């Protein structure tokens, strides 16, 4: 095609506003802490020796889990707020345009791209349709589920009459039947998020190398650069 004759044309678009970028990394860190401490709450470390009064290991693990949970939850609330006041890209993961034909057609192209059948990916300023849908289901809803079940379990310890118990535990625990099932589902949802994270990181690295736009550096700088010119049609 071109290469040697045409001049190299690199364009950039400001996609991820600063609050979104800060949220992304705070959220990523919170998820890391939550998964590690959460796993250790379900399957604790080997016992520490000596007198109980000298240790607070499980206490600290739980404290970290709850703190990171608060950060995740309030960060998520802020992120929803930013979906309203931020630019159009801030809304993408919350409302994938599933009612649009073009969305599904381009998703099919994206699937072909990952099956290595399509030779070239489409370029997008924001998320591609497949990414958008996966983020909506396996991230947004999984996180909502984890926040609700998480606070329901937290409210059990906080006790009846506390706001956490009233807002979450009082109806979520009976909804599942009892506390044990809420624990089980909370674990399952964690693994959904872990699977999401594996795919998310892999795909971000792959697209950064193989597609014609920047991915990883965009989440640091906010700018998305296009190696072969910005897409003319970027919406649905």
């Amino acid at each position: 095609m071109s290469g040697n004759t045409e001049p190299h044309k690199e364009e950039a678009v400001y996609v991820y506003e600063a609050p979104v970028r800060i949220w992304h990394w705070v959220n990523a860190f919170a998820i890391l802490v939550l998964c590690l401490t959460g796993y250790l709450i379900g399957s604790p470390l080997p016992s520490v020796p000596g007198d109980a009064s000298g240790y607070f290991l499980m206490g600290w693990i739980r404290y970290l889990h709850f703190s990171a949970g608060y950060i995740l939850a309030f960060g998520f609330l802020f992120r929803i707020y930013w979906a309203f006041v931020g630019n159009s890209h801030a809304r993408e993961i919350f409302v994938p345009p599933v009612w649009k034909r073009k969305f599904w057609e381009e998703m099919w192209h994206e699937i072909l791209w990952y099956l290595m059948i399509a030779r070239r990916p489409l370029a997008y300023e924001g998320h591609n349709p497949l990414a958008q849908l996966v983020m909506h289901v396996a991230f947004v809803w999984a996180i909502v589920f984890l926040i609700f079940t998480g606070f329901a379990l937290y409210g059990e310890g906080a006790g009846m009459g506390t706001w956490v118990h009233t807002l979450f535990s009082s109806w979520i625990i009976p909804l599942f039947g009892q506390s044990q099932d809420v624990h089980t589902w909370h674990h399952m949802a964690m693994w959904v998020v872990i699977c999401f994270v594996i795919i998310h990181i892999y795909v971000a690295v792959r697209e950064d190398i193989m597609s014609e736009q920047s991915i990883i550096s965009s989440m640091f700088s906010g700018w998305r650069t296009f190696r072969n010119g910005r897409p003319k049609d970027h919406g649905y």
Partner: protein
Amino acid sequence: MAETFYEVMRRQGITRRSFLKYCSLTAASLGLGPAFAPQIAHAMETKPRIPVLWLHGLECTCCSESFIRSAHPLAKDVVLSMISLDYDDTIMAAAGQQAEAIIEETIAKYDGNFILAVEGNPPLNQDGMSCIIAGKPFVDQLRHVADHCKAIISWGSCASWGCVQAARPNPTRATPVHKVPGIADKPIIKVPGCPPIAEVMTAVITYILTFDRFPELDRQGRPKMFYSQRIHDKCYRRPHFDAGQFVEQFDDEGARKGYCLYKVGCKGPTTYNACSTVGWNGGLSFPIQAGHGCFGCSEDGFWDKGGFYERLTDIHGFGVEANADEIGGAAATVVGVAAAAHAAASAVKRALHKGDDQ
């Protein structure tokens, strides 16, 4: 008009002084302030003893066994002075025709003014034939008495949730009282446990009779005063949990030192009951104190929540038995391997087509 509690107690030779002491003690055991003692005394002097019909469905009688061991108040005081236990086929003297006649007698005499206490639950399959009382399915007796009672006490996990006879696959379709189709819409108080703690049972009765209403209930219909906290919240081994000291096996050093039983499957963190505060057998002990984890007998469906000695519940339906972390870990491994394979394939493809565009 039935006798009042006070009249019955005086007739039994109890002095007024002892009666007032009893009222104060009852107020204290219910967690009420001193101002409530005269209220209890007043209620007992003026209110007639409420008749109680205690029906038995599919059950093991552990609720009754627990009940008769109550120390504060003594079960005999409850049965002889506080309530008029008109029918309880397990502990009543009458049998056969005489016993069954009492039910109709009570309904005729106190229609809408007696308490129905249910121990066990009715099976619904085979037209209820798996539990026959006096020649008829128990479910019929239950519905009939429920039609005429004032309120229902669901004793134990059977009546409250279903318990062992309702465990998967529940062949007789044993059904807890509040889910029995066609049962009268009466207030139901659940007192779950297998069995419930004796003092909890007698305290619930005392409260209902004293104040003429149920104690405050949670969303699932359990009295908050006994079921608002988990075993874990008040467990005397909690410091070992917070420190991170666990029994790994029942014969290890941790078990001898009384460490937390979390890792050997204690369900204290998910079980709402008063064992760790009230205790059993007059406060002598409770399972964790005896060195065995709680297995959550007062929780809904506790027989179906995996092994009693495992912390996480096994999930069925994947063709294998595995807990959430095993299933999730396997899924994450599959995703990770798939990502790595995809990355390798992408690299190979890119290498093969390198230069195609140029």
